[in-house]
């Protein structure tokens, strides 16, 4: 019997091959281009010069400052909203979360166009406050991505834990810092990772508000326009290493948190 037999396991093959060809291979090629020179020789000079070039370091620092600002503001705005939607006055109105997530599905360049018009009206000229406008537009763009994971993590939180805190004599600030915040750490982390990286790399927002300072993503964009594949790949490789590092750390924290939950 040599007849072909269908097995559900085989269904994974097309996707596995696709992932290897179009996800893994391109990243390997980027690593190769990033660490070779024009002649194809292995070289770390580009890599070393990135970290000694003050202009590049300036770009890295500027991206980090923007990313930290945007992430912190998003967190400060999103946490109360997520808490109120999950455990507060709006907890029973289940579809209310949708209202906060909905803007995410409108094209982000169109949304920023809308906000830009408002900012132009308020400020007269966008060019006066490039940094502030960038931060406002990014917060506007990324806020739903922060609310969502926070909400998911806060709805799972057992309300009796909060009540137990009050019964044991704690006031709201104490319950918040000792019970609610620690139990929502996984949500905070996944929200932060969804906002931090785009804030470091989404240079379109800067372009749209006429902020001509570079962030990490702008470097890739400008090397792409000047056909400098080696340097473009190098920046991608550096970002990749940064992302890998970030993922490992956040996985550690989240799995540690989950481990602690099991013990209770």
């Amino acid at each position, binding site marked *: 019997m040599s007849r072909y037999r*269908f*097995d*559900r*396991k085989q269904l*994974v093959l*097309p*996707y596995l091959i*696709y*992932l290897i060809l*179009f*996800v893994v291979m*391109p*990243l390997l*090629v*980027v690593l190769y*281009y990033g660490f070779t020179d024009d002649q194809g020789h292995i070289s770390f000079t580009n890599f070393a010069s990135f970290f000694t070039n003050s202009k590049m370091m300036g770009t890295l620092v500027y991206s980090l400052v923007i990313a930290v600002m945007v992430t912190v503001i998003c967190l400060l*705005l999103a946490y*109360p909203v997520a808490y*109120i939607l999950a455990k*507060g*006055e709006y907890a029973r109105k289940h*579809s209310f*979360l949708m209202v*906060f997530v*909905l*803007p*995410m*599905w*409108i*094209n*982000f*360049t169109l949304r920023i*166009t*809308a*906000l*830009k*018009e*408002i900012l*132009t*009206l308020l400020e007269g000229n966008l060019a006066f406050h490039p940094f502030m406008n960038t931060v406002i537009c990014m917060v506007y763009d990324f*806020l*739903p*991505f922060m609310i*969502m994971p926070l909400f998911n993590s806060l709805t799972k939180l057992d309300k009796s834990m909060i009540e137990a805190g009050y019964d044991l004599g704690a006031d709201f600030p104490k319950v918040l810092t000792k019970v609610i915040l620690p139990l929502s750490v996984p949500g905070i982390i996944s929200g932060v990772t969804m906002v931090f*990286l*785009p804030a*470091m*790399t989404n*240079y379109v927002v800067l372009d*749209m508000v006429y902020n001509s300072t570079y962030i990490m993503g702008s470097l890739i*964009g400008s090397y*792409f326009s000047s056909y400098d*594949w080696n340097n*473009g*790949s190098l920046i*991608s490789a550096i*970002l990749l290493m940064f*992302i890998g590092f*970030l*993922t490992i750390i956040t996985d550690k924290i989240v799995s540690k948190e989950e481990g602690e939950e099991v013990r209770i």
Partner: protein
Amino acid sequence: MRKNGQHMIIWLVLAFLYLPILILTFYSFTSSTMIGSVREFSVENYITLFTEPALRAMMFGTLSLAVVVALISVLLGSAGAIGAFYSKKGVQRTVEFFNEVPVVNADVVTGFSICIFMIVLLHMDKDTYIPLVIAQTALCTPFVYLSVMPRLKQMDNSLYEAALDLGCTPAQALRRVVIPQIRPGIVSGFMTAITLSLDDYFIATYTKPATFDTISTYVVNATRGAQTSIKTALWALSAVMFVIVVAVVMAANMKRAGTGEEDLRI
């Protein structure tokens, strides 16, 4: 937290999220070229939006691309999830690991890496649209996988076994028993793929044919200086997209209310 304080926070954040788009929608129905200056009512922007050839081509192109990419992603991702679910732990872990890469990776890096691989290294022609479709599919499929997998895990496996015992072939059992049970995951994966493709700027920039524009690349180019009529026609496009998204979300919510609540995911 006090009641009034809670209402205030909710409404302030809602105002921040919605006022810009609502104000722009209002002005899209006037003849003014900047907000703040009220002119008379006009549907000129909507006429431009649907008659100007460049705008029509851009909208049609973006939509067709999104549908093609979402269909391929749904096929690849659903089949991949089903296959991985029944495979050995090692295979499943490998797929899961690779699947996570485009999810956590920055879109700039995903787009640039595929451009380097397919266009620079393999000399593939951008004008064939193949790099663009492949690259957007690489971005969207992981999200389909992630929305189908939880459905498989919740599924009652004994139904599949029962179908086999009652004489189904594995392929029939898959089509008649497994797929209906994971359908909600497939549908939400499809919707996610559509919105990711419609939203994408970076992957399109690095892999698209030079003359082809998606909404995002078109809008960004328009901010670098476009005719005023085009600029205000894009306000009309924002309004149209806003109304469509609200309608789809409301329809989905009504349907969900009928079938009971379910977990939200991106």
